[in-house]
């Protein structure tokens, strides 16, 4: 039992990263119908911005975290400008291809400039260490990541459910033309959606740095697939669903590996696909109603 709970706690950080990435994913999909494959590179760019602030400029952790989020937003807006706006309204396949191209382009550029070697991402002192409760180790960084997830998740839900902008986003996701005739500036809503989704990727990037202590140019490749599956599990377009889906996937994957015989650990990535197939067969619309967010 202790082993089980300990492993769950270990999975929480990974789950929170997937939750933040999945929430951003699901927003761009739900509101503008874009499956943004470059989301992983937006995430990676955020991690690099924070890394440079922390290790090159020597700025304090809090400032570096903010700069990481801003870096992610900058790359997110760039993706919107070059890979989405010129082809807006031209169908899912085109958007799929342009965002895929943006993903490869940005990743390759980073590999060229900074190689794909891991770079250290050192944790601030206040996040180091752990509490020992009974036989359980609870890391301070895990507590911090969970607090950030809850606060950011709550803010996001409030924004989407209660504010004027959130209502405009959801109205637009249902019927863009009618939303426009209410005076809703859909161009502006698209930009806001990209900013929020990218900021969430930035938050995920900081969580990643704190959890694993290193970053690299190709770090966005795998999480983005898992995060996409997390948002499918939660019902594409449903922010709350994506957060729950991310946690299920992250914790589930960690437990899966924990109970696998050591020689089969290579099957780790199989887990998300098993979950995806179960969801697609049992409840293809996801756990929560989509299109409502």
């Amino acid at each position, binding site marked *: 039992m202790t082993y089980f709970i300990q492993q769950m706690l270990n999975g929480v950080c990974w789950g929170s990263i997937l939750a933040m990435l999945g929430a951003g994913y699901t927003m761009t999909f739900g509101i503008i119908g874009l499956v943004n494959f470059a989301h992983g590179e937006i995430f990676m760019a955020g991690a690099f911005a924070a890394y440079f602030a922390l290790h090159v400029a020597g700025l304090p952790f809090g400032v570096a975290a903010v700069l990481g989020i801003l870096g992610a937003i900058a790359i997110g807006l760039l993706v919107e400008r070059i890979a989405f706006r010129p082809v807006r309204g031209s169908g899912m396949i085109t958007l799929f291809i342009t965002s895929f191209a943006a993903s490869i382009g940005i990743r390759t550029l980073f590999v060229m400039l900074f190689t794909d070697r891991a770079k250290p991402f050192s944790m601030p002192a206040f996040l180091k260490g752990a509490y020992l409760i009974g036989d359980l180790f609870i890391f301070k960084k895990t507590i911090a990541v969970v607090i950030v997830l809850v606060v950011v998740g709550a803010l996001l839900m409030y924004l989407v459910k209660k504010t*004027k902008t959130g*209502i*405009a986003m959801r*109205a637009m996701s249902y019927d863009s*033309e009618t939303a*426009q*005739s*209410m*005076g809703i500036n859909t161009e502006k809503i698209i930009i806001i959606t990209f900013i929020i989704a990218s900021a969430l990727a930035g938050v995920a990037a900081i969580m990643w740095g704190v959890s694993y202590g290193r970053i690299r140019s190709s770090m966005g490749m795998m999480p983005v697939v898992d995060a996409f599956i997390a948002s499918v599990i939660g019902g594409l377009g449903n922010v709350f669903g994506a957060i729950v889906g991310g946690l299920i996937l992250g914790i589930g994957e960690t437990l899966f590996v924990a109970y696998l015989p050591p020689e089969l650990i290579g099957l780790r990535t199989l887990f998300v696909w098993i979950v995806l197939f179960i969801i697609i067969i049992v409840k293809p619309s996801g756990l929560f109603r989509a299109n409502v967010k």
Partner: protein
Amino acid sequence: MSTELLLELSEVTAGYGKMPVLHGVSIKCHRGEIVTLLGANGVGKTTTLRTILGQLKPRDGEIKFNGADITRLPPHKTAALGVAHSPEGRNIFGNLTVIENLRAGAHLLKTRKELKEHLDRVYSMFPRLKERRTQIAGSLSGGEQQMLAMGRALMSNPRLMLLDEPSLGLAPQLVKLVADTLTEVNRTGTSVLLVEQNARLALEISRYGYVMEKGAIALEGNAKELGANEQVKKVYLGIA
């Protein structure tokens, strides 16, 4: 009644792709009026409204609203000038609750106080919407959806409301509610451009009317005169 010009279409030509639909349509609506646009299916009534809104860019002609040229304005800017739309088939946001639909309609309002004021006004016009305010709009009945579409358009306190087929598919007592509400809305200062198949209802509450045929205005006049016109009687009112 004031006769200040609110909306003026002069010789507007518009269409979809290569297909022209409107061939030089000219319509005037004065402040405080209810003006009706009659015509059979497919003559361009909805296209006319879409062109005014800016959802469709005209090829030729000019549209003026409240003195300003709105010919090529995008829809959200036209809306900001005070033009609201209650579309044919209602187009309510089926994923939102009733109150969220109304709040979407109030997007242009600046303050919470205004929002509350207009919400109360719409609720008093359609008490049913208040009862159903937390219900998902997609699960409303057809009549309730029509009330919601009208209520949503009124939330912005528009100068002009474009109303497309409000009586379509409604039970007779609901048609009467729609007509009464329009008269009431008009009394509180909103002008209305009404597209309606139910010509009897439309001419009853309007001051002026246009009859469209094949993308052009075929006939126009005071509602009373139109109602007495032999051709209108025969074709649109079903009186031989």
